[in-house]
């Protein structure tokens, strides 16, 4: 538990910074916008509607959408990174604008017209009416909107993890994917506590704004000061400097890349990825290179981040790149796909592949051993006569992927029912008999752990998914990086990867991904890369 909590302060701090900056942007945008449109209903209606529509986009989708949006606009024309802080802040700020805008408009419109007429009649200019009368009288309603937005944003910010922004979501995503419930709870509890504290501070501000005279100004000033001080103290070590995207490699930049001292490693949102990131960390740290891991990234986010140079290395799978990025058809053989993927990465994206790690993490259909025995099912084709009375479970992607259509076509399968599960829950679902067949990952330890069998793909409907370490151009030629990571090629068998995955995923006697990584590396003949 104490090891769990050690990571909390920096994540809490970056979560707080993320929320405060997003909220600040939303306030700076929302309140002037409200002032501009409050007495122009024809303008207010479309703007509030647009903000409302943005609100209906699920926060996770909105965050994910920001990544290509920022990337396509070349960092909004400012050259900011499309990874991590910038897209997260933009998405969260968009999300927070609605309650702020709506309350501010309501508050400004709610001021007694007689009071406004008196103010004008006294000889106040438009600006003076706004500053001296309208805004102070609307302030409590405006503050209530900010408070609502703050609580929402604290919650929504946990979803910034998959776009590469460190936050309390790191606990939640990693906890969910590795079935580490205490880790999940730490993330949830910390985010709830942050929401409560922020809400209490803002409640004080709101209360003060409804109060009168100098006391009001005092409370507002001290609460604002407290937030700013907290932001500065927590934020300073996390100041995010917009990073200019790495330009394509040229001979001129080559010499500057000598002597890599720090590497950022990415990982997608499942156990094997956490373990492989830790494997790379251990090796690189032994070679004297500092490592930072950005875990729980979305599958396309992590690839884009490597392309843009926001991360330096991660492990991907040949089939993923073949299907998702190269949009190539199925049916090629394993070695052909691997070779073409590596060539394409090098040519199109200046990305170096260190070759297959030695195992595949492919899609496979799996079912309970006893059920398979009863129905005499060994290969996927054997399912055909039974499928109409069977149900199949898949992860979020499965039923939308080409593999699913290819398998149905190749074996003429018509299942009675399909259900989507989080990958974490998929194996339990089939083990408990809630579904009969699942789309499993061939390297998942829970196949053996739950006494499942994978069915042979005799028609080669499912493409191969060789695991491979990918390096960004910045680090691809570094001799120490080469020395640390290149020997991993071909060093991990499917059995050992399954075992390592199971060590982390199993309910009793769990290991951390770092422990599993050290276990994997033990016994591998690795040379010392310290110079």
């Amino acid at each position, binding site marked *: 538990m104490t090891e769990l909590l050690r990571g909390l302060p920096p994540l809490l701090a970056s979560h707080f910074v993320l929320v405060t900056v997003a909220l600040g942007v939303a306030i700076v945008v929302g309140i002037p916008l409200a002032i501009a449109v409050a007495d122009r209903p024809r303008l207010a209606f479309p703007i509030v509607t647009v903000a409302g529509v943005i609100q209906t986009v699920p926060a996770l989708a909105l965050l994910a959408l920001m990544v290509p949006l920022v990337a396509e606009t070349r960092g909004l024309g400012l050259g900011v990174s499309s990874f991590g802080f910038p897209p997260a802040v933009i998405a969260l700020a968009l999300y927070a604008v609605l309650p702020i805008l709506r309350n501010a408009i309501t508050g400004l419109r709610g001021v007694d017209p007689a*009071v406004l007429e008196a103010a004008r009649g006294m000889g106040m200019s438009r600006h*003076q009416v706004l500053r001296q009368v309208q805004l102070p009288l609307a302030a409590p309603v405006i503050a209530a909107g900010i408070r609502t937005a703050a609580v929402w944003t604290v919650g929504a910010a946990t979803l910034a993890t998959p776009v590469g922004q460190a936050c309390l979501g790191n606990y939640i995503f990693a906890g969910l994917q590795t079935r580490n419930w205490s880790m999940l709870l730490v993330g949830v509890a910390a985010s709830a506590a942050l929401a409560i504290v922020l809400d209490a501070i803002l409640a004080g501000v709101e209360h003060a704004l409804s109060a009168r005279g100098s006391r009001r100004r005092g409370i507002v000033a001290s609460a604002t000061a407290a937030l700013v001080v907290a932001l500065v103290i927590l934020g300073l070590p996390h100041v995010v400097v917009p990073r200019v995207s790495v330009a394509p490699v040229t001979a001129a930049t080559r010499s500057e890349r000598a002597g890599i001292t720090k590497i950022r490693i990415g990982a997608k949102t499942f156990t094997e990825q956490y373990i492989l990131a830790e494997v790379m960390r251990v090796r690189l740290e032994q070679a004297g290179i500092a490592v930072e891991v950005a875990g729980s990234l979305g599958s396309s986010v992590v690839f884009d981040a490597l392309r843009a140079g926001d991360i330096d290395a991660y492990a991907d799978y040949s089939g993923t790149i073949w299907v998702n990025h190269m949009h190539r058809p199925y049916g090629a053989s394993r070695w052909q796909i691997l070779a073409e993927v590596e060539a394409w990465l090098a040519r199109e994206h200046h990305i170096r592949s260190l070759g297959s790690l030695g195992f595949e993490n492919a899609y496979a259909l799996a079912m309970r051993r006893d059920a398979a025995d009863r129905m005499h099912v060994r290969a996927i084709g054997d399912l055909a006569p039974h499928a109409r009375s069977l149900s199949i479970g898949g992860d979020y992607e499965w039923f939308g992927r080409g593999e699913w259509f290819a398998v149905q076509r190749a074996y003429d399968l018509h299942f009675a029912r399909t259900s989507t599960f989080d990958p974490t829950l998929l194996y339990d679902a089939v083990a408990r008999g809630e579904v009969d067949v699942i789309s499993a990952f061939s390297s998942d330890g829970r196949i053996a752990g739950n006494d499942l069998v994978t069915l042979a793909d005799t028609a080669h409907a499912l493409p191969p998914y060789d695991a491979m370490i990918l390096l960004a151009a910045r680090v691809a030629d570094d001799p120490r990086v080469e020395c640390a990571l290149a020997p991993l090629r071909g060093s991990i068998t499917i059995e050992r990867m399954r075992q390592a995955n199971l060590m982390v995923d199993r309910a009793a006697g769990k290991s951390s991904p770092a422990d599993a990584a050290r276990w994997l590396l033990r016994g591998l003949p690795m040379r010392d890369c310290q110079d």
Partner: protein
Amino acid sequence: MIDIVGVSKRYGDVRALRHVTLQVASGELVAVLGESGSGKTTLLKLVNRLIDPDAGEIRIDGHPIATTDPVALRRTIGYVIQQAGLFPHWTVARNISTVPRLLGWDAATIRARVDELLAVVGLDGSHRDRYPDQLSGGQRQRVGVARALAARARLLLLDEPFGALDPITRVALQGELRRIHRELALTTIMVTHDMVEALTLADRIVVLYRGEVRQVGTPVELMTRPADDYVARLTSMARHQADAIADVSA
């Protein structure tokens, strides 16, 4: 002196004022009398340019107001509305000092002026730091008058200032207004729909009906020589009320 010459104003299809001409002499207290929709409030707001006319001209002491800055103009004209329209987030003293602050008076002068005005409108110093919702309706209206006069305005516009007050308070404040008007030698235009109020308070009365002036005259002139049936109905109604009250007390 206020010169209103041939002023018209329409809102869409509604003609709020039709060719209204009126002179208010310095030191005069003129009541503008009419039912709702007669254009009386529009006429008042034309004087401090909360509304600008479609046609016609308004001059104050000979200067056409159309060419003055409306914000600067309003700071020289006292303005009192129904239920006072006090700023609810400010104390009595802060409310009264609104215009002096806009004009940039120094703090000591403002303080002295607030004390002076509290005395003028008959409130004692204990009211200084109260908020509007801690005052009675009559006290609020006194503060409203003090606020209107704070920057030594010579011209006072009142829009149904006593409409929402109970009868006893209303009569007391009407007397106060008459006294303040005389003591400070103000030029005052008061909008009202109450014939008795107009008759007992004003030097002259302007009767408006659907945007047109039906009669301008002293209370005596209105009572003795109503210009038309409408004015005659108004005056006879006031007379009937007075007679009825006399009968009861006899």
